[in-house]
């Protein structure tokens, strides 16, 4: 015979017909004889009945309409996110073809420059890491510029073919749409290389009188809707510059994070996860990285103060400028197409897309509440 305790546990199942025949029978038997359990069963049945009796309510009239609207805008948002990701990819290509302007000035005493057969390595920063090797002939003149990019394609620029030079100091090398100006100063072991986008003007080039200089490569990253910029400083007065730059930055923004590490692997790995610190090439790992968050106007002021502080020893490239130039260009080309009524072509369509992407980027830049500035300082002492 079952005990009351057991039976009480089984009442719901009994009501719902979830018991096997044997157990159900046992419950029945008990209930016949036990008045308290009987009462309990009745009450429980009553409760279930009352709940069953509750009416189902109707959907509100505008339910489907309202839901439809929300689904449509959700769908749009998902498309946008997809586009932004696509845009990031395209922006990588865009940046590569526009080519970030990068100036390297090595301190007097030349860390890397060697005569003879040894090639000189320096990096061009930008999302696409490309290594440029300079080969010198017996007279220490640039014989060839070799470039090796990630796909291990070797494009070599042979002096005899494409290198034009008015004097031995300035050598222009052009091939496949990229133009490079190689400026050598044979007296001291300094040289610099700048890559020049074929269509746009070359902004000013910093002088190379040695000492600290700041190279700004505004490497733009649209990451999760935030606009981020990375800045590289090559310092021969490391500790002093670290505190100076921090002091200035703190006036304009809030420090987010800070990494001071000699382990260059750790830094590039971390840079990968932040997603914005990508301007560092094989030869130039930052010894110190700090991130600040600023709004655009503060950022402009910050740059102004850095310029003042490091007068003459800075260089900054501005992708916003490049984007705007490209936009003008696209508009021109598009009106050509429209004049000739050839707007059906894939080319035109991709221009439309590109234009939209650029406008989007510029819009994000303008409307970003927060710009993340990744400042990397390389110890060149």
């Amino acid at each position, binding site marked *: 015979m079952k005990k009351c305790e057991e039976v009480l546990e089984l009442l719901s199942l009994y009501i719902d017909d979830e018991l096997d025949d044997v157990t159900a029978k046992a419950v029945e038997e008990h209930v016949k004889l036990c008045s308290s359990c009987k009462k309990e069963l009745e009450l429980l049945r009553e409760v279930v009945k009352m709940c069953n*009796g509750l009416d189902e*309510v109707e959907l509100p009239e505008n339910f489907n309409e309202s839901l439809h609207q929300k689904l449509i805008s959700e769908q749009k948002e998902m498309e946008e996110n997809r586009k932004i990701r696509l845009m990031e990819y395209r922006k990588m290509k865009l940046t590569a073809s526009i080519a970030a302007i990068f100036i390297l000035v090595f301190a007097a005493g030349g860390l890397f420059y060697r005569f003879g057969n040894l090639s000189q390595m320096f990096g061009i920063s930008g999302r696409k890491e490309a290594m440029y090797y300079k080969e010198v002939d017996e007279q220490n003149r640039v014989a060839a510029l070799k470039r090796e990019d990630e796909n291990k394609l070797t494009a070599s620029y042979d002096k005899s073919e494409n290198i034009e030079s008015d004097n031995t100091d300035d050598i222009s090398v052009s091939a496949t749409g990229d133009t490079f100006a190689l400026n050598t100063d044979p007296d001291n072991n300094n040289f610099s290389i700048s890559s020049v986008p074929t269509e746009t003007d070359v902004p000013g080039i910093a002088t190379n009188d040695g000492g600290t200089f700041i190279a700004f490569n505004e490497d733009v990253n649209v990451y999760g809707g935030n606009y981020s910029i990375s800045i590289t400083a090559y310092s021969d007065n490391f500790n002093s510059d670290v505190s100076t730059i921090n002091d200035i930055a703190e006036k304009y923004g809030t420090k987010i994070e800070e990494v001071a590490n000699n382990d260059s692997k750790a830094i590039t790995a971390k840079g990968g996860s932040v997603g914005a610190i990508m301007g560092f090439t094989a030869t130039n790992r930052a010894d110190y990285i700090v991130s600040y968050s600023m709004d655009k106007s503060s950022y402009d002021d910050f740059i102004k103060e850095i310029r003042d502080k490091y007068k003459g020893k800075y260089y900054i490239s501005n992708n916003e400028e490049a984007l705007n130039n490209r936009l003008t260009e696209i508009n021109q080309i598009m009106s050509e197409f429209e004049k000739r009524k050839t707007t059906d072509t894939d080319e035109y369509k991709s221009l439309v897309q590109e234009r939209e992407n650029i406008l989007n980027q510029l819009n994000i830049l303008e409307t970003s509440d927060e710009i993340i500035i990744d400042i990397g300082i390389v110890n060149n002492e």
Partner: protein
Amino acid sequence: MSDTKERDLVKRAKSGDVEAFEQLILGCEKKVFNIAYRMIGNYDDANELAQEVFLKAFRTIKNFKGDSLFSTWIYRVTANVCLDELRRRKKKAVISLDEDIELKDGEVKRQIPDDAPTPDLEAESNEIKNIVNESIRQLPDDYRNMIVLRDIQGFSYDEISKIVNCPEGTVKSRINRARQALKKILQGKKELFDEEYVK
């Protein structure tokens, strides 16, 4: 809806096809709404909540693996959204709540009614139904969920265990306790009712 039709719609919905998604949910909209209504106790809130359920489902449909009926999955989302919302509201209310409501000997630690605005009683003109409604709202969230799914919506034990993602044994004992708890609340109300009436 046939199996293959559902699978096809699911596939399209996963790639962001709003129309396909709307077809999928046609059959369960009313149920979802009613579950939300009984859980949250308020018609307008239920409207918002139900829409949130479908929106969430649309966003996360890639997680639906097809190992259950689509509707079962939707009801699971519903239950979760409702429980989350109830939890969220409790956090806002500055009330100390009793902890785990374990029915040991039929004792119910009555939870203080949640912070939701007074429920709409427009659907229930019947006095008894009002009382039942109110009593259900006084149940702890988990028990309320059981009553809504089993005794109001009529899901089977098996379906419920899939919806709440619990073993069937747990579901069985929980339903029993939920009903006992509800019984106690109703009995308490009946006493008050009788008292008033007698006066």
